[in-house]
């Protein structure tokens, strides 16, 4: 799948206030996407200035960033920025890099509603893993496993549950599901990525059928009979 994406010229915007991290990330991205156009920002302000004209496909961002040049970095700034961006660009793809992912729990409702790709990548992840998350985000997938509660139980929105029931109990096509749920096709696709994230179903190298895997996991979890 990533080969397909390589055909197009990717536009990636990376924000991190640490020069070394920024350079490392860019190096890795350049290796992986030699054709991509990559730009950088070190503060929230710089990012907001570049965004409208650059129109990136993906924003790779650190949570702990300064508001303006010369200010200290705060995770609050990153979170506020993320919230603003998700509101203004509902289909923009994000990969959030941080060493403390739990901070994102605060805006989980907004992340759940976001239609674009959204993956998180802990800074301690290997480069290979990190690039995988970037790839997923570019595909519009969601990966928020690190935010999930340690204790029992799956957390799922009612709409996503309805989707599962319509798809696997009534065996409907996506188009029909959209009609029944009174939402767009795009929203149905968005629901799928969210459900897959809930059920820990992510694309893997073995190229298994994702829908079948989703159904299997949903049954295991008791979401469908």
């Amino acid at each position, binding site marked *: 799948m990533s080969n397909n994406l390589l055909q197009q010229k990717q536009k990636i915007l990376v924000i991190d206030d640490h020069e070394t991290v920024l350079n490392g990330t860019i190096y890795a991205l350049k290796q992986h996407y030699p054709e991509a156009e990559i730009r950088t920002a070190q503060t929230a302000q710089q990012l907001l200035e570049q965004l409208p004209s650059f129109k990136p496909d993906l924003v790779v961002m650190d949570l702990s960033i300064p508001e303006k040049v010369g200010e200290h970095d705060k995770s609050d700034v990153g979170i506020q920025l993320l919230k603003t961006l998700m509101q203004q660009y509902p289909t923009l793809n994000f990969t959030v890099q941080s060493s403390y992912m739990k901070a994102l729990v605060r805006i989980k409702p907004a992340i759940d509603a976001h239609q674009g790709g959204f993956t998180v990548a802990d800074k301690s992840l290997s480069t290979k893993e990190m690039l995988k998350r970037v790839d997923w985000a570019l595909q519009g997938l969601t990966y928020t496993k690190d935010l999930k509660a340690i*204790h029992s139980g799956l957390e799922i929105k009612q709409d996503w549950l309805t989707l599962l029931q319509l798809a696997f109990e009534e065996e409907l096509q996506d188009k029909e599901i959209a009609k029944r749920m009174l939402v767009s096709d795009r929203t149905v696709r968005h629901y799928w990525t969210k459900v897959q994230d809930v059920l820990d179903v992510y694309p893997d190298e073995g190229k298994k059928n994702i829908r079948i895997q989703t159904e299997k996991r949903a049954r295991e979890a008791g979401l469908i009979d």
Partner: protein
Amino acid sequence: MKRAVWQKILDTYARWQIGALPGFTFLGLIIFVRLTGFFQYHEWLVFDSFLRWRPTEEVDDRITIIGINEADIQSLKAYPIPDRELALLIDTLQEYQPRAIGLDIVRDHPVEPGHQELTAVFEKSKNLFVVEKVLPETIAPPIISTVQIGFIDAVFDNDGRLRRSLLGMPNPQDRQDYKHSLTLRLATAYLASEGISLENGIRDVKTMRFGAVELPQIHPYSGGYVRTDAGGLQILLNYRNSQNPFHSLSLNDVKSRNFDPAWLRDRIIIIGMTTPSAKDVFNITAIASSHSAPGEIYGVEVQAHAVSQIISTVLDGRSLIWTWADGWEYLWIMGWGIVGIILGWLPLAPHKNFIGVGIASICLVGASYVLLIWWGLWIPVVPTVLVLVLNGVGLTAFYQYDRAMRSRLNERQSTINHTYTTIHNGPLQTLKLLIKQSRDREIHQDELISKLTQIDSELREVYESLEREVQTQEHSLRIGSGQEINLNAPLHETLYQVYSQTLERDFPCYRTLQLKIPNFEPIDERHLSIEQKRSLCQFLEEALCNVGKHAKGVTRLRTDCLQKEDQCIVRVKDNGSNSSVSSEGRGTKQAMQLARQLRGKFHRQSSPEGTICELTWRTKKSWFS
């Protein structure tokens, strides 16, 4: 209780002390500088200014000045004025029966022609007073009865201004011989015919007294004076503030009888030179000068002012200028110094403090002015204002700095305490457990990593919570899981945090949970106060805790926080078999109270199929949207 009050007093005293020390130092310094005499000039300046700013007074028609001016000398073509002219003048004046005549022109040797005639006039005029100078350079009086001689010596201040009137002193050549000034002679003569005689003082036996009026004698430290020569009996000059304080005639006016006879009859007439060439001028700034150059006044006019002030005081109740005893003056300065300290100490915004000091200074200057104008009381102004402003403004800076430092220290201390407690309750406990398990070799590699990860996240939470505490102070809520929730965030985000944090807690019933269905959507919260948001968070927390504690066998948990049109709902619904929740618990009461506050409803229902716990309320309609 008593102890707490006492402690508070001690604390207040300690805070007050910080500024009080520099405050009293300023005060001591000002008093020291005052004693060096440094402020004398400034005090005189203020004193003269106050006197100049008095309302204008009426003419004192008890006194008439005969001023021999340049025109008179031109027509006589003689200077000094020949004795005959003076004899003629006195004779003419006597025709109008004045009460007393003062001849403020020295006549220590004959000025012919007419010496014989003048001597004859001196002999027959019992109401005539002539002058001598007692202090070096001395000038002898003409031959006349000693009770008709008054001296014209004057005492000047260091700035060359004349502010005092010397009334009497022992003769330096013969200490037994007590000399009277011309001023005193004329005043005594005038008042004697009113039946008021010159006596010794009663309150102050060393001073003089006319009837009930004791003349307020100057001492070396009177008013603004410091170590001044207060020899003899001196009083301060309370110049009559007027452009023309006395009727005045020239020699030619008298010769040509060009005057109103009423000006002379029964009056005090003072004859003197009113021409610059006679060199009988004094520097004063207490009143506007009348005839001569700016800041100068003729000697004969000074005599008139000096005589007038005594007679007006005795007969009209006009005030002489008096001063406080030194003790009162220092008490006054210290009092205002303390007012300054208090103004500096008051916990006001700096600009308000300046305004306070400004108002206090205006009051102080105003009071000093009024006291001098109405009661003739001259009190120290310059050191008093200075100490007030120095203390008021200077100590403001002192106290503000101290207050800022103190609050910073408190903040730091509480941060340290808070950090320690948080670390102690969280990561340190985990760490200790880990050490114990490691020692017992009970721990696997995987578990070790997971425990270390937990410590890592707990330590990070300490930082997060501290940061939020600094930013929001009271606008946060600490929930049971130990997390701080920022109440300034949108309500659905805040409630989601409460939700996700609470579900991470280790309650027995959460273990059977398979499905959690959260639905957190934005709610119109414009009319909710921070306190109400806090209560809503606590309501949700309580409801979720109840699920964890009582919902046996729960597999599904649906949590809603949403708004349908104007209806807001916070609802927790589980499918556990709940039997033991009493509906009268503390949480229930709080929920009902919150519902009342929001004018909504609290509803809770348990059945074998599960429990619903919900709070609903309507958003208020805004008048503007």
